[in-house]
């Protein structure tokens, strides 16, 4: 019975992230349009897009290899698994102990690895540009993320996301400089990783500014749908991550009565609802950076993360 419930909760979580991811993207787009004084597409437009893509034929470049065809599924699977492991509304999920925060980052890294390879597969210059820039960004974003993880893990004494979230709910953690630094670093990394302005613009195909879009330029049909969905999942993942670590209220523990889950999901949804306009606002008010300004941006994130960790190491003795 216990097992069944755990399984169910885990299943709900996986389905939930899958279901909410396009919606979140839709909301963000809608908000952005709103801030830009545009009408904007409906919030469910991403679902429609996905459905349309799934129905379409795949047009495959002539020299695309099996890797090109396998990559979307691998990318999607890795991202989905990663997203499923981040507590959204409940902690102590059944499989949460199978991967900690570092593993989640590494899973996202796997996804990126295959996507970057896919960008190179057809042998076009655009694919190369995208992959090359993507790995450059990742090579800074990933360490920054790990540094953030260090900060969190040192405060919580664990790299298990569930444990971290649980720890964060206790008041004695209090407000710490390190946490603040980690939050800023996390947001910077999240912006970079999800290809948002000012790093990348998800809604443009201008060759000089594209990163993510350049990589997936040759994709079409269901493959593109998988990739889009993975990107949306990733955005959701970062929202959930920020939410569960820095706003850990509303999470339910493993032995809670069923009705609590309802409120927990509601709390989660409200977190997303608050986060999405914030992101849109940020994107609207910032200008896109030149690609070679990005290292400075991410370097800042890395430094903040590192500083946060270092402060913790140092403050332990105080």
């Amino acid at each position, binding site marked *: 019975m216990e097992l069944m419930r755990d399984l169910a909760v885990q299943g709900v979580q996986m389905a939930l992230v899958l279901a909410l991811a396009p919606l979140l993207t839709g909301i963000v787009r809608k908000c952005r349009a709103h801030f830009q004084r545009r009408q904007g597409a409906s919030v469910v437009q991403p679902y429609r897009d996905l459905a349309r893509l799934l129905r379409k034929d795949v*047009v495959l*470049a002539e020299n695309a290899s099996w890797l090109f065809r396998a990559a979307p599924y691998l990318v999607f*699977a890795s991202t989905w698994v990663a997203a499923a492991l981040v507590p959204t509304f409940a902690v102590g999920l059944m499989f949460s102990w*199978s991967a900690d925060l570092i593993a989640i980052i590494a*899973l996202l890294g796997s996804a990126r690895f295959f996507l970057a390879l896919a960008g190179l597969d057809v042998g076009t210059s655009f694919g190369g540009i995208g992959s090359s820039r993507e790995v450059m960004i990742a*090579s800074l974003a990933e360490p920054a993320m790990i540094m953030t993880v260090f900060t969190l893990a040192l405060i919580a004494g664990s790299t*298990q996301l569930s444990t971290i979230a649980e720890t964060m709910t206790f008041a004695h953690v209090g407000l710490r400089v390190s946490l603040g630094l980690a939050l800023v670093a996390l947001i910077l990394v999240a912006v970079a990783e999800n290809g948002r302005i000012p790093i990348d613009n998800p809604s443009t195909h201008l060759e000089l500014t594209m990163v993510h879009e350049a990589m997936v330029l040759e994709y079409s049909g269901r493959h593109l749908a998988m990739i889009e969905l993975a990107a949306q999942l990733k955005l959701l993942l970062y929202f959930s991550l920020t939410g569960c670590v820095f706003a850990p209220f509303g999470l339910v523990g493993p032995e809670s009565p069923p009705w609590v889950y309802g409120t927990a999901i509601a709390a989660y949804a409200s977190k997303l609802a608050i986060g999405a306009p914030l992101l849109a606002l940020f994107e609207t008010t910032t200008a896109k950076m030149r690609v070679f300004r990005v290292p400075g941006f991410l370097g800042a994130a890395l430094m903040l993360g590192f500083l946060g*960790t270092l402060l913790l190491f140092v403050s332990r003795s105080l």
Partner: protein
Amino acid sequence: MAISFSGIVALLILSLAAPAIAKWRIASPTIYGAALVISAVLFVNAALRVGSPAADCVLPLGLPWLGAHFHFDSLAAFFLAVTNLGGAVASLYAIGYGRHESAPGRVLPFFPAFLAGMNLVVLTADAFSFLLAWEFMSLSSWGLVVSHHRNSDNVRAGYIYLVMASFGTLCLLLAFGLLAGSDGSYAFDAMHSAHDHTLAALILVLVLLGAGSKAGLVPLHVWLPLAHPAAPSHVSALMSGIMTKIAVYAFIRVVFDLLGPPDWWWGVLLLGIAAATTVLGVLQALMEHDLKRLLAYHTVENIGIIFIGLGLALAFRANGMVFAAALAFTAALLHVLNHSVFKSLLFFGSGAVLSATGERDMERLGGLIHRMPQTAFLFLVGAAAISALPPLNGFVSEWLTFQAVLLSPALPQWGLRLIAPTAGAALALAAALAAACFVKAFGVTFLGRPRTERANTAQETDRFSRSAMIALAAICLLLGILPGLAIDWISPATVEMVHGQMPVQRFLPWQTIIPIAQSRSSYNGLLVFLFIAASACLAAAAIHRFASHRLRRAPAWDCGTPSTTPLTQYTASSFAQPIRRVFGSVVFRARECVHMPAPGNTSAARLEVEMHDIPWEAIYAPLAYGVSFLSERLNALQFLSIRQYLSFVFLALVFLLLVIAIWS
């Protein structure tokens, strides 16, 4: 132990017999086949020995009044297992790969000798036999490095290699001399006693120089990217994957076993060097376009990762934190195993590419995934493993290292507290850069369109080579999804060296691994693997079942500007350019300079990049210049007249008489 000895003797006999039969047509399969069998037996023997009580043996060889001491404990067994696993797979690979060898007579005699040398190093337990085996290992591998001697770069690489190896040996000799003390007790047993602090520090430095020069710690790594690629690929795999681990063994044996209790600052020293090694290694790899040199630079990086683990283990041990030390030490040993597996796999893959196309330069490859799909897939597995992607094995050991870093705030010393997160950051940076590098390596070599005709006409490699690679890829996956077994297997060696061990993993449900306690952190490769596999299959099946599954082939779109020539593809150097811009200006003093023709001038623009290998230019070039300068100056003494030589005799006489006159 008897099995080990007979195996080593058999390998030596094989090596002696090789020149005699090298002319035969079946010489190469015979020798490699025999080496495969012997290595396999040695592997099984060693793998089963881990955890058994240590065995000792003294043979009346070597140093006359001491004899040759041998010691077979769990640490040795672990390293022997790693060695012979690599040896067996390399032999298997070489049965096929060896057919492409133009001059088998230059490879066959050295290959078994090299294997025997590595086995011997691990077994020996006195300074003389150790150094003998150590240098024998260097010498036999040198023979392999210079086997393609018509290329003068290879001869130069061999030269630099052997000089560095001799440097290392002499440093180790000095270290052992200090360890043995004035009474000259060169057996390892006699060295265990505690040593004076300054003396111990000196020994540590010497061992770092000696073992580090073999392992490839910065700045002693310069020979490694020269020598490893110069050898035939199966030997590159052994040198990169295994021999560097023998150096790690030497370091562990001396510093953890013989040197007695460590001082805390040793950890600082080690972590600093290791962090620099890790980052510099991977950055140099990124700048490299020769596939095998790239892999060799990655060995430098991974050695750095191993030494981060070892440095942490030392730091924890110095503070009596046994469990943390065990964790860090296990992480290091596991990475030793993992790296030996995936680095061999990658070198095998590059060897397959080399024999299929005759090219090592990635800029002249491309599109091989179509021509060599199996090799491409296997190389991809290796690339994913070395990039520390879950659920493969590279991730596990790096994850354990991270866990060890996370325990470091408990260390009381400030120096360690500052250096440990720095090393962690370096590790994180290196992991990300490694992934970038292997996107480049795999993408440029195997993906895209063929850049040259030779790449276009490549053939899939032979079945022996493939089976060797398949075996390694399977091990990568197995170690990735069942790391608990490996950790338990390693733990006797951990107990020997740091007197503690990680929690027993084998009884945990679903093969989870936990470094300290489940509440702290845990990882389950098996579940992650199953998750990913299941969700990918689920998604694919669902889509193909419920949505479209049609497919059309068409020319690449490329934003509407498709190009016909494959030369417009992204090259390795253009791929690495953003990273070069980010890191290169500091690490390589890289300068980019674009020469634009004047407006109206239709000639091509030129981009010039200037990069510096700073360790080389700061240390080795001046040294070489100094030696050359001095020898040139002293050489003038060769061309004097007899009278001038006589005046030397005269002056020497007068000088000595003066000394006598004044002194007495």
